[in-house]
């Protein structure tokens, strides 16, 4: 394997780790608000690292633009969706979890 292939592998593996952590967060966190944190943040970095790992292996600039664009569009839509879900939860009176005791 070449150096670029190793870099790509390291970056995509790190990305997959953040997706894993984000998923664990969705399953373990106690309420809708904290789960949204896990989804938007951990997955955002996970995707960013996977995109970087793929950019390392690209042949031309159109692929680089395409991958960067995918990351930006996903970040924008996840931030917007996250805000809308949180607003809907707050609007319908979903109480936030606090540590008992």
């Amino acid at each position, binding site marked *: 394997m070449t150096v670029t292939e190793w870099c790509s592998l390291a970056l995509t593996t790190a990305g997959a*780790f*953040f997706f894993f*952590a*984000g998923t*664990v*967060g969705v399953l*373990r*966190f*106690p*309420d809708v*608000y*904290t789960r*949204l*944190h*896990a989804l*938007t*943040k*951990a997955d*955002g*970095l*996970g995707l960013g690292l996977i995109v970087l790992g793929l950019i390392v292996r690209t042949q031309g600039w*159109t*692929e680089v*633009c*395409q991958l960067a*664009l995918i990351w930006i569009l996903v*970040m*924008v839509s*996840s*931030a*917007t969706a*996250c*805000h809308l879900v*949180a*607003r809907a*939860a*707050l*609007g319908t009176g979903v109480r*936030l*979890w*606090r*540590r008992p005791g």
Partner: protein
Amino acid sequence: MIRRALAFAVLWSICTQGEMSSWVIGGPTVGAATLASVVLLPQRVWHWRLRGLVRFVPYFLVRSVLGSVDVARRALHPRLPLAPLLVEYPLRLQDDLARVFLVNTVSLLPGTLSAELHAEHLTVHALDGGVAGVSAELEVLEKLVAALFGTPLVDSFVKTEAARA
């Protein structure tokens, strides 16, 4: 309108890697997107200051990496360290577009999530950090966004004084 159509066309050609046959779908899509953007945002076009951008981008990248690492750590920690709270942050940013931009960046940054945008304040949900810590973080971000959009920050105290005068 032509500028917006052109921008959407560039986006489409990047997504399809300049494939000519894709314009059968791309043409109508670009048209619809242009129409939607003109209806939803009739007046203004995005306008960022270069100096603001140079300061904002590194801050955003570093903080969002830290935020993701922080959330991952909390999710995998056996004791699940969370102390969630809601913070009512009084907005000093007046410009609508800049406010929406702030709402979205707050959601992507460490431990904070925009819940609701009111006329004078923003409700933020945070994983931890206490009211003071979260407010201090938001203040830094609000300043950076103001510099990015080249728009002033107005204290609500000053505003009520001005309204009285």
